[in-house]
């Protein structure tokens, strides 16, 4: 019997059950994912392309887009460096408090974004711990761009680290050691061995991190103060427009975020495949080592 025949045997349900299940799943998907997705674009274009472009290019919307891009441009590289450093430490060294560090990295995933935002208000806000000191030195963080960036960095910092830790643990240190004995310096080893080794996992983490950084609403909403043209990100701008019953404009900006999501999904699936190959290869070569 070929493996395929075995697989066919294993699924003994009658054909109609299989088809019903598939149809159900598809219908569900269409209703809860496909329909809203289409609705975003239909609503965005309900008053024609002219209104659509006006909504996007209007100065306040444009400011929101720029702020979102700026936030992501700061948060993503920061978390890239942090993620690589944390994953490196966890995968390659034994030290006290390693488990605590791993748990802490997950904190932003487990805490509600609103709470994340509030934490920053509590620390940096006028009434916060550092508030008086900051005011004396003329530094505003809350209800200003720095607060938005800080909150976004916090919310998105697990993505890169989470992605890299299992990959780096599976890969071990043999290749780095080989490079060192071949005469590479620590720096050369990092760039020529570690980075190529993790690049797909890194890219995957960066894509997810970026999507979240641009799409974050809760934490940013708390620290932003919703000052139009100054501290509104795209997500916040959508909410304001919507609350003002400017539905077409709200959906126009929302459609940009939706497009971002679609691009992210496509890139994610492409990279995901490469990461799986790499993990498999790393595990595989390790299994081989164990066998020999």
């Amino acid at each position, binding site marked *: 019997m070929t493996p395929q025949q075995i697989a066919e045997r294993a699924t003994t349900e009658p054909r109609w059950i299989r088809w019903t299940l598939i149809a159900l799943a598809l219908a569900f998907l269409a209703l809860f994912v496909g329909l809203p997705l289409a609705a975003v674009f239909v609503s965005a274009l309900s008053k024609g392309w002219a209104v659509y472009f006006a909504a996007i290019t209007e100065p306040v919307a444009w400011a929101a887009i720029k702020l979102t891009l700026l936030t992501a441009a700061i948060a993503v590289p920061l978390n890239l460096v942090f993620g690589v450093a944390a994953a490196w430490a966890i995968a390659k060294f034994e030290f006290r408090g390693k488990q605590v560090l791993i748990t802490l990295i997950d904190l932003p995933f487990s805490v509600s974004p609103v709470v994340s935002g509030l934490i920053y208000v509590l620390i940096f806000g006028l009434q916060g711990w550092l508030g008086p000191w900051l005011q004396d030195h003329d530094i505003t963080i809350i209800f200003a761009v720095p607060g938005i960036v800080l909150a976004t960095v916090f919310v998105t910092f697990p993505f890169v680290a989470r992605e890299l830790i299992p990959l780096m643990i599976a890969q071990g240190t*043999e*290749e780095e*050691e*080989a*490079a*060192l*004995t*071949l*005469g*590479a310096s620590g720096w*050369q080893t990092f760039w*020529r*061995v570690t980075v*190529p*080794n993790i690049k797909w996992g890194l890219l995957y983490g960066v894509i997810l991190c970026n999507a979240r950084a641009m799409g974050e609403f809760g934490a940013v909403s708390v620290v932003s103060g919703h000052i139009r043209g100054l501290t509104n990100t795209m997500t916040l701008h959508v909410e304001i427009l919507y609350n003002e019953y400017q539905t077409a404009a709200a959906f126009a900006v929302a459609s940009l975020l939706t497009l971002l999501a679609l691009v992210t999904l496509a890139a994610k699936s492409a990279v995901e495949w490469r990461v799986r190959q790499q993990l498999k*290869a790393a595990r595989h*070569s390790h299994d*081989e*080592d164990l066998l*020999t």
Partner: protein
Amino acid sequence: MTTVSEELRNVAPEKLAVEGVSKTFRTQRGHVHALDNVSLNVREGEFVCLVGPSGCGKSTLLSIIAGLESTDSGQVLADGKPVTGPGRERMVMFQESALFPWLDVLGNVLFGLKLKPNLTGKERREVALFYLKLVGLENFIHANIHELSGGMKQRVALARALAPNPRVLLMDEPFAALDALTREQLYGDIQRIWAERKKTIIFVTHNVREAVCLGDRVVLFSPHPGRIQEKFEIKLPRPRDINSVDLAKYSTEITRALKRHLKPETTEVAE
């Protein structure tokens, strides 16, 4: 003030001097006393084979000589200077081939050469191709590492280690995964490279015959804790044929010594 022995060392420094090295690994499951007061001197141009059962600390000793692992006590001198870290003058060929899977075969061999200054790209390529030919992989230079068999990977690793022309080669069971025919061919090659290029080689193996065939000296290890038990001078003319009768006599003697030093349950050394 210098003592007589220091004076002598200054006159004729050992290529490698392992002096009273001990190493204990501490893990959650307890302590492993991997090496206990191991001393070994290796002359310039000498070929030393380390033989011993699994887990007796051979790889650990090699890592320490390479500078990849620290000692608990004792030290390693290379050309009279203490080893503090890895470097290209002491090249390691690892037990697991540790190739770079994102590079092809040629890229792996070029890796060490690219780190060497004063070579043109063309020269690097020529050197890499020379060594790939030596290990019989000239038709696989652009192959993916994933596509290679275990033996082929070991040959790439050998070429990669030889290409930067190190003075000292530390080889950890490099031929364990090879078929007998390729292995015999590589015995010849490695002896030739060693003699022509005046390399100092430390070679770890489980195979006593292999050790006798290659080594000027065979050093016997025993486990728990890892210690040097005996050292044998192999006074056979070169190049040696692994199937010769004289060689078999030596290997019988050494195998017998090995069994003497071992507890019965740990004998898994092939003759």
